[in-house]
């Protein structure tokens, strides 16, 4: 049934579990988890990822750096990216979208909002 793979990059286990909890409600999606940007890049190379969800504030490599590196790779030019962060100012949002993110969700998250964004970017009904 699962046709798409979502990579969730989040250093907080609580938040990661919550995002995965939401994503597992979308039947067509399986979830791969990563703790930070570097781990995210590693998992990206190991799996066929269809959508990336990442936090911004993370140790080792933050989410914005991750988005910027992913977009530099020609293989991931079209990869849908959702930023999930506590940074809620319009400037933060603008910065993330300018780097190549497709959507921006602020914490605390609402599961329906995450599900709706993922479905929309994966063009799921």
């Amino acid at each position, binding site marked *: 049934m699962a046709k798409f793979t979502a990579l969730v990059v989040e250093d*907080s*286990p*609580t*938040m990661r*579990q*919550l995002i995965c*909890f*939401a994503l597992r409600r979308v039947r067509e999606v399986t979830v791969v988890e990563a703790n930070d940007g570097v781990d995210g890049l590693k998992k990206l190379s190991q799996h066929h990822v269809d959508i990336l969800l990442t936090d911004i504030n993370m140790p080792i490599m933050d989410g914005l750096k991750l988005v910027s590196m992913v977009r530099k790779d020609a293989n991931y030019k079209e990869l849908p990216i959702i930023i999930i962060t*506590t940074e*809620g*100012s319009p400037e933060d949002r603008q910065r993330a979208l300018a780097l190549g993110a497709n959507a921006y969700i*602020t*914490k*605390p*998250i*609402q*599961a*329906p909002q995450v599900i709706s964004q993922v479905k929309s970017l994966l063009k799921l009904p």
Partner: protein
Amino acid sequence: MGDIQGGGVSGDGYIERREEIMAVMKKTASFTEELLQENERLRQRVSTLEAQKSMPVAADNSFVQELMERLKQTENDKQELFSRFQEVSEENRNFAERYVEIEAENNNLANLYVASYQLHSTLDFDEVIQIITEIVINLIGAEAFAIALIDPKTEVVKAVSAEGIRQEEFPTVKLGEGVIGKVLADGEPFIPDALDPEAKIDLTKPIVAVPLKIKDLVFGVLCIYRFFEQKKELVDVDRELFTLLAGHAATAIFSSRLYTDSNRKLQTIQGLIQLMAS
């Protein structure tokens, strides 16, 4: 005929004429009878035709009447279907509203489940504090807050973790005094109905203060001083999370403290035994 009128007719002639007249009269009578019969026949024919003519009219009337009946029935059916459609639309709207409510409930339950799961996932004190911090930031949306515990020996309230404020600046609190002191003394949370986005941080007056307690034993407090700018109001799940934190975070902190203490004692005893054995 002129002869009769003239009166000069002989006896034989008279008889002949009379017979002729009689024959003519008979013919006339027969002709009249035929005419009458023909008249009767025609009259019957007319009435038959009239009857035939009136029959289709009656049939047409009943057909129109039947059509009218059908039309009326169709109108009734249409009306019934329309009212049923309205009922179904209303039901649909109710289901949609219910679906949204259930989604929200689902979301709340997921938040509570994850928070509870994470809180009890470790017996390490620092990890427990880190998890409480994550819950307060990520699930509640607090930007500046402190977790303070009552030192069991000195009974002084001291912050063990802080975000958005300096930990060492957490105020000295006397039980029963101020917002924090009252929460610690009464064991009842202080949660406002609405958030003031313009409020300045005053470390003695948190926006939200939640006691950390096991049954009636209060041994700490969570003080929130500021929420993220996107957090405009406190919703039901926030209140549920505060209640959950009040109990579960307290249990997790208490357990981890006990575990850490007993582990430390165990290590001391083991070290002593090894020392004695050697």
